[in-house]
C-alpha cells in the first residue's frame, strides 16, 4: 500500500501508460497495486467505474494467485477474455516495491499479442523507476481507505497527471 507518494507516482506513470495505450491500441487501461489503489488510468469516464474495476482487478489477482499456488501451477501470468467486440486483458507484474496489476480493454484494432508485448515493455519501464526499486513499509489498516481514495482523487482531478 502506497502512502504519501501517490501524486508523484501518478506523474511518473503517466508517460509509460500513454505509450502503452498508444502502442497496444488499447481503449481503456488501468494500473493498480495489489490493494486496489489506482496508480494510473486511461479512458475511464468516471471514478465509480475505476473504483469497481480496481477492486475487481485486485480481487482477481488475489484469487488467481491463490489458485496457482494451490494447484502448483506457479506464478500466474495473465487472464484474457475475448468477447464479441471487446477483449479484456488482466495481468500482474512484480516490482521490488510491490505487485502491480494492469487491466486493459481492447477491440478489433488490437490483438492479444500486441497487448501482451507492450504490457511487457510497460512492466520493464515501471520496474526501472527508482520509486519501485525498494520494498515499501507497511501501512496501518486505519489509513487504508484514505489512501485508496487518494489514488482516485488524483487520477480524476482536472488537468492532473495520471489521468487519461
Amino acid at each position: 500500500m502506497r502512502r504519501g507518494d501517490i501524486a508523484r507516482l501518478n506523474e511518473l506513470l503517466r508517460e509509460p501508460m500513454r505509450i502503452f495505450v498508444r502502442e497496444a491500441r488499447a481503449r481503456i487501461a488501468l494500473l493498480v497495486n495489489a490493494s486496489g489503489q489506482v496508480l494510473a488510468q486511461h479512458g475511464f469516464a468516471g471514478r465509480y467505474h475505476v473504483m469497481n474495476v480496481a477492486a475487481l482487478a485486485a480481487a482477481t489477482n488475489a484469487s488467481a494467485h491463490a489458485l496457482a499456488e494451490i494447484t502448483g501451477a506457479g506464478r500466474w501470468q495473465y487472464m484474457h477474455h475475448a468477447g464479441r467486440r471487446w477483449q479484456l486483458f488482466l495481468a500482474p507484474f512484480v516490482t521490488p516495491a510491490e505487485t502491480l496489476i494492469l487491466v486493459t480493454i481492447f477491440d478489433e484494432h488490437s490483438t492479444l499479442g500486441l497487448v501482451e508485448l507492450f504490457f511487457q515493455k510497460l512492466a520493464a519501464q515501471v520496474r526501472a523507476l527508482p520509486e519501485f526499486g525498494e520494498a515499501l513499509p507497511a501501512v496501518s489498516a486505519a489509513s487504508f481507505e484514505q489512501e485508496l481514495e487518494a489514488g482516485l482523487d488524483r487520477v480524476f482531478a482536472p488537468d492532473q497527471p495520471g489521468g487519461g
Partner: protein
Amino acid sequence: MSDVVASTLDRLSHVPGVRSALIVDAEAGVPVASELGTGASGTAVAALTASLFRRTDQAVRDAALGGLGSFQLETEEGHVVVAGRRELIVVVIADRDAQLGLIRLEIDRAVEALQ
C-alpha cells in the same frame, strides 16, 4: 502441434538463408509454432507482423483490391516475408542474400497446407 503445422514449419526453416519461421494466429497475434534464430523474439515478431498484416489487409480491401495475399519487407540485413489467407499467417525472416524465389514458393505451399 499438429503434423501439418510441424512439417510446414520444418520445410520453411530448412530453406537456405531462412533465419526464423513462424506460424501465427492472425486474430490473436500470438505464435502457433515457431523455429527461431538467435536473438529473435517469437512473441514480438508474431504480435507485430499480425498487426501489420491485418492493417495492410484492411488497406488493400479499402482500396478495392481484394484481400491481402502476402507482403515483403526489405531491411538492412534481410527480408521479412508474410503471407496468409484466413486465421493463420506464415512469417519468414531471411538473410539478405537468401533465395527469395525459393522462399516464396515454400511460403505459398505452407499457406496452402494450412488452409
